[in-house]
């Protein structure tokens, strides 16, 4: 498999009145062709900021990408000129967002919003662009696509709006689709429709996907590989089955145990992770999860663990081996 995207030591800070918030603290990951990478974490862990940094969508000020590389097609996304990154966004790497309502222009018809970039970027005529758009809308399962081109965003239901957004994101046949919690605002039966649609499109178009979510359930059936984020760090990374069978960071393990399952009745109380995720104003000289961790040892409080290999393709940032409960050497 060829590597499509390689991100190294990405760091993003926000200058706020309270201080310098370290939102992303040296995140490294890669994405192979046709692969689906899940990035999982709770709100504020830096998962959205990481991918927004890649596409240079962080508003500056207050945000700033202070370090890192993101190699895509042999070029560093973070060093491109504004012109160059504009050509990447939407055409080679495109993104869909959580709330489809706020991502559309409410006063333009869906047809206008879909055809404009085609005329602009791909030099199509109005007629070509609208034919192309109608095809895209049918592909994502919008019934009566040619009539619906004249509708405004508010005339679509939440699920249909998300389908339109997917159609727009895929118009230029991107190599990478970044999906930032695209189903969080939707009902579970509609969520299932959208996930099924994305899987089908992935298999027919062959794009790679980065799927950001807080829902470990969705990722289980969708991703090939998963990265778990906490406090701006990737704290564990593994192939999907390995992560769920063998979580080797106390945070991933805690998250998995805190989830009830729809197919089984739990006989015990839910395991909760006490306390709250931190907001980091400086680079911590300790493991950021240590204050909430049941397994912590002395070393956790004086040294922040890096991702270390714990199995094939499996890396975890923890000083403790959870199987033995002893410190790793």
């Amino acid at each position: 498999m060829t590597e499509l995207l390689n991100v190294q030591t990405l760091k993003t800070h926000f200058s706020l009145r309270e201080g310098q918030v370290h939102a992303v603290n040296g995140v490294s990951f890669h994405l192979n062709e046709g692969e689906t990478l899940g990035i999982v974490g709770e709100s504020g862990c830096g998962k959205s900021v990481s991918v927004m940094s890649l596409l240079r969508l962080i508003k500056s000020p207050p945000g700033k990408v202070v370090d890192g590389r993101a190699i895509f097609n042999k070029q560093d996304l973070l060093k491109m000129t504004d012109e160059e990154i504009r050509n990447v966004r939407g055409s080679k790497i495109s993104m869909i967002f959580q709330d489809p309502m706020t991502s559309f222009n409410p006063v333009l018809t869906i047809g206008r919003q879909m055809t404009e970039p085609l005329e602009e970027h791909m030099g199509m005529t109005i007629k070509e662009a609208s034919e192309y758009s109608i095809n895209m809308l049918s592909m994502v399962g919008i019934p009566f696509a040619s009539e619906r081109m004249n509708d405004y965003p508010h005339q679509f239901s939440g699920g249909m709006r998300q389908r339109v957004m997917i159609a727009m994101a895929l118009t230029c046949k991107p190599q990478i689709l970044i999906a930032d919690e695209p189903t969080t605002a939707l009902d579970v039966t509609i969520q299932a429709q959208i996930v099924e649609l994305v899987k089908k499109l992935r298999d027919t178009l062959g794009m790679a996907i980065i799927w950001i979510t807080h829902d470990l359930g969705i990722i289980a059936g969708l991703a090939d590989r998963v990265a778990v984020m906490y406090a701006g760090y990737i704290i564990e990374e593994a192939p999907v089955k390995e992560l769920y069978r063998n979580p080797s960071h106390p945070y991933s393990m805690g998250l998995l145990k805190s989830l009830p399952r729809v197919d089984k009745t739990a006989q015990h109380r839910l395991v909760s992770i006490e306390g709250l995720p931190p907001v980091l104003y400086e680079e911590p000289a300790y493991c950021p999860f240590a204050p909430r961790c049941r397994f912590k040892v002395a070393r956790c409080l004086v040294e922040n663990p890096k991702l270390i290999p714990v199995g094939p393709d499996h890396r975890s940032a923890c000083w403790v081996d959870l199987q033995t409960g002893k410190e790793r050497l």
Partner: protein
Amino acid sequence: MTSSDTVLLHVDKLVKHFPIMRGIIFQKQIGAVHAVDGVSFDIHRGETLGLVGESGCGKTTTGRAILQLQKPTSGQVIFEGVDLVSLEKKELRKMRGRMQMIFQDPYASLNPRMTIGEIIGEPLRLHGLADRKESNEKVVDLLKLVGLNPSYANRYPHEFSGGQRQRVGVARSLSLNPSLIVCDEPISALDVSIQAQVVNLLEDLQEKLNLTYLFIAHDLSMVRHISTRVAVMYLGWIVELASREELYNHPLHPYTQALLSAVPIPDPDAEEQRKRIILEGDVPSPVNPPSGCRFRTRCSLAAAICAEQVPEYREVSSGHFVACHMVA
């Protein structure tokens, strides 16, 4: 029957329609949103009834109509032997202490200008149950009960995280020693690791104080964890109601089956094995619900009878109710 089996709340053919009006001076009703349309169920003392369904199915309206926060259009709500619908305002007010609500959004349901202590103590003051000193003592007890430091009483809501605010909401709902608490999506605004904290708290309190919950949620996994019995709503109807094990292991209504199959399981091996029933389309508008069975427009089993007759809500086996023509 033991005392814990007795019925605390009996809801009979509860209907709540919201009128749609036209005109400014000469207003005329031109239609109605059929939010809740003839819902009947019992809640037993000490149990948790889970009420699940997708957004817009009427589960929140059901909760609010039970508490008379919205006057039902018709139907009966008998709580501790009293029909709440027919009560005068003053008498109803006396009952309010016995039934409380925990709201979904911990950011919107706490007054930002009041301290935590004032928020939790306010019900006591309004009901004339405690003077300032007693109320302060009670607030300290309640804060301890929900796992918050009593010294937080003088702080304002914005100083707290979502999970802590939800604890404040729980403490407020407990201040008048209610027997029934309607939990309206109490955890859906919280992060995963915090959800478990709040659910564990609710379970502990139920055991300690012998509380009865109506737990409204759309997260079917969490409902399975917390409920004794579960009711599934679709477009203003309860389409199926059964004990937890029965409903999750032997769902009868095609909607329940589809809903359960749509919930992702946090286990890649289980996900591989699963057969998903993907429902087509969206929920129809409650302004103009389909004739006959309301689910028929999305149902794979729908036959001619489903468009003509409203399916009867009936008991097919002990304690298992379902409204579907196709269930034998």
